[in-house]
């Protein structure tokens, strides 16, 4: 199975200064094992695109504390106190993007579309400096597509080809990010033989997925804890 790699191999695909798309909504649907590898490495100046920065000291929060990050692009950072403090000290750049704009920008990035006009944020501070256009009598602003060098995503189950399914709302940004980066690495809880996932149920077709990594976390009481 050529797609399966060790979690530490992930680091071979990430260069200093890269843009990383990181799946998840808070800690839900987040590739915790891959993030641990990056936090333990000396990668630096990374830009991460993710809805949040995990939680303080957890998920992407670990990369912040480890000094891997230059910039965060996402919709909600106030729930991670470390992110607020790092921004205050001038150690972290933040680009705030409305959640729907973030999702659509990544979708466009993966679909070969350069950008799009949206009504979201018209007339707000987030629209400052952005092109405005009236279409059929309504005001829209232009938002550019988002692409990454590497996407790290989290899936519940993969088959050996790399077809993916997700755990409930753990799906969130993961399928979009799978389409929008040069290299896509999926952390998975379980790998089954090709053919064992009903084609009707496949959410991310295997062509989008370059590598699979087995998660080192197991779920206990509904929450991921590191396995021994």
């Amino acid at each position, binding site marked *: 199975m050529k797609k399966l790699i060790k979690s530490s191999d992930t680091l071979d695909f990430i260069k200093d200064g890269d843009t990383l798309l990181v799946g998840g909504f808070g800690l839900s649907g987040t590739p915790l094992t891959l993030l641990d590898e990056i936090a333990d490495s000396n990668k630096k100046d990374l830009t991460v695109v993710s809805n949040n920065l995990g939680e303080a000291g957890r998920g992407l929060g670990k990369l912040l504390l480890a000094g891997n990050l230059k910039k965060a692009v996402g919709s909600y950072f106030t729930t991670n106190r470390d*992110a607020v403090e790092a921004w205050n000290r001038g150690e972290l750049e933040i680009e705030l993007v409305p959640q729907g704009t973030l999702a659509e920008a990544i979708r466009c990035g993966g679909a070969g579309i350069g950008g799009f006009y949206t009504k979201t944020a018209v007339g*707000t501070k987030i629209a400052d400096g952005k092109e405005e256009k009236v279409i059929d009598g309504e005001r829209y602003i232009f938002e550019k597509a988002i692409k990454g060098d590497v996407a790290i995503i989290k899936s519940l189950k993969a088959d050996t080809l790399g077809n993916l399914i997700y755990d409930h709302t753990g*799906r969130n940004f993961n399928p979009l990010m799978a389409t929008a980066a040069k290299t896509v690495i999926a952390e998975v809880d379980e790998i089954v033989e090709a053919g064992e996932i009903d084609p009707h149920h496949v959410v991310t077709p295997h062509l989008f997925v370059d590598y699979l990594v087995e998660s080192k976390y197991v779920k206990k009481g509904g929450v991921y804890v590191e396995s021994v």
Partner: protein
Amino acid sequence: MNQSDRVKIAKRVVEELPEGAVVNLGVGIPTLIPDYLDGKKVYLQSENGLLGIGPTPDEEHVNMDLISASKKPITMDTGASLFDSADSFVVIRGGHVDAAVLGALQVDRYGEIANWAVPGKKILGVGGAMDLVAGAKKIIIASTHQAKNNQPKLVEKLTFPSSGVRKAEMLVTEHAVFKFTEDGPVLIEKLSDISMAELREITGTEFKEKIKI
């Protein structure tokens, strides 16, 4: 503000939700609404990719991958569906949410909303607030009449950063229900014993009255 006032607001908002509506609930008072539907069937949508939020699970059935947009554990209602964030915002931005019930820091006399940032404080979170304001078919603001510092929420002009040019249709507080028009707010119902003079006193802008009898 006491819990019974918050419940009163939630119950009054429920009256505005049509049977079978697709509804998105913001943080704060709107989160009380599922407990006061009183048999009315609505489909609750969550930004992170679910239509059909069910009751809160007991501790044994918590799954961190089945959560609300506020990152609280939830369950799925019968007939629920799951989708990714892009499709979830197709629902929101494409005008497929029948009603969004949102909290607000301020609302101006025409229904323009400020619900994401406080002036002079760092602005590091917006979430789906602006998408809902731009895209929902109907926006109902569910809020206390005054902020904690007794400043009115319904104001002449926003002093907090706007969430978008799209206006809310309605404001429900513990004292009153307002509809927004091009001429400003219209009081359509009083929900407490407050006198009209007192209500005008604690409201930050002029309003007309068109109370149903």
